């Protein structure tokens, strides 16, 4: 599983939306849900792994929304059939210019080759939903053996709140 890389940098972009970063979350509680078509057990397990990892590595807390997604849920996991990409992130509702209220995180089921692909892609797309950009040293890169966030990225999530 190979994807596009951002150039490594001492100070990377954070939560500016362009290029390749997401936006800051609207609070320290990161809600997530699965759309009706997110019907892969492996995919759901990988998303839960990614949410657990986010909670474990950062000061963010996860909150699963059951009974269907809401328009304001922070991370809405959606199935994608776009065969040209592994996944994608779209902010669908802003709080302001640098905070996203709700985002779709899409994973292309057919491109996931195994458990590590699922987990790395889930960690990656979730990372955009908390403002992270592409990098080479953690799951914001493309190496499917990288399944966590780097200390640098953890610092962004924990410290760049406003």
């Amino acid at each position, binding site marked *: 599983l190979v994807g596009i890389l951002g150039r490594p940098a001492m100070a990377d972009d954070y939560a500016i939306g362009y290029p390749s970063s997401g936006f800051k979350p609207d609070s320290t509680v990161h809600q997530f849900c699965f759309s009706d078509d997110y019907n892969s057990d492996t995919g759901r397990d990988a998303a839960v792994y990614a949410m657990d990892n986010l909670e474990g590595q950062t000061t963010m807390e996860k909150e699963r929304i059951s009974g269907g997604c*809401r328009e304001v849920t922070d991370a809405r996991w959606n199935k994608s059939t776009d065969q040209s*990409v592994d996944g994608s992130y779209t902010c669908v509702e802003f709080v302001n*210019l640098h905070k996203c209220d709700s985002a779709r995180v899409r994973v292309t089921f057919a491109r996931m080759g195994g458990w590590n692909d699922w987990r790395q892609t889930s960690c990656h797309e979730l990372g955009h939903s908390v403002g992270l950009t592409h990098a080479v040293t953690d799951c914001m890169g493309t190496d499917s053996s990288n399944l966590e966030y780097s200390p640098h990225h953890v610092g962004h999530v924990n410290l760049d709140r406003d």
Partner: protein
Amino acid sequence: MSIWTGIELLMRNSVLRRTALLAITAALGGLVAGCSSDEQDEATSQVTAGSLKDYASALQRVTVYEHDPLDELGTLQTVSEQSQVVGVGKVTGVQSAYAVSHGKLADGSPDLDEHMLLVIEPQELAQGSELLGPSGLVYVDHYASPAQPISEIREDAVGTEDRVAFFLTEVDYPSEVELVDEFQGRTTDDPLLTPTHVSALLGINEADREAFPLLTNELLEGSDENLEALNELGADVDGFTTASGKPDPESGEISE
């Protein structure tokens, strides 16, 4: 001034620009009287010189794709060979399109993932003319976001002097995917096309002599080969670069 202040200013300027243009249009004969808001947007976009770089930065601001680097796949020449519709043209429209249904939300309303269409009038068509509808127009599908109204970014793409190079494949959804308003923004004869590679929809800016992906910020490291592939389409990009733009943190202006 922070980047956010800069973007806010640009957004305000955009609104002011549109407002002023509408006022001038109305003063020249009340041409917009009785028009719908969509028609007013269309009228405005016809008299506004936009920039495909601004359009690209707007799209990339809300959507990030995870993809294989184009150059690792063999540059645009390889993508061309894998594509059904390839050419160079001018953008004539940006329109709302269908939505993919992901099921229902908790309140019972449909969970719809919106798409939009970039409408291109080909100037050079290297392949795929037989696939296009009677209009001869090319409809390129990509994600939309309700957080970024099309009316706010249309003017960046329509009316610009920038050209666009496209390497496209017909969209083929699996049967289990439910599409809502499948033909919104096009006729049933117009095929729905998507970039064969997400970086293979490129803006061509004559003034800055740059060719750059619209949907990604990929740098296209194999620039010579990629520019050669574009030249084979009649894009005339000798001496261009394939650098990707980035907003200045102070002004919000896009530069290399």
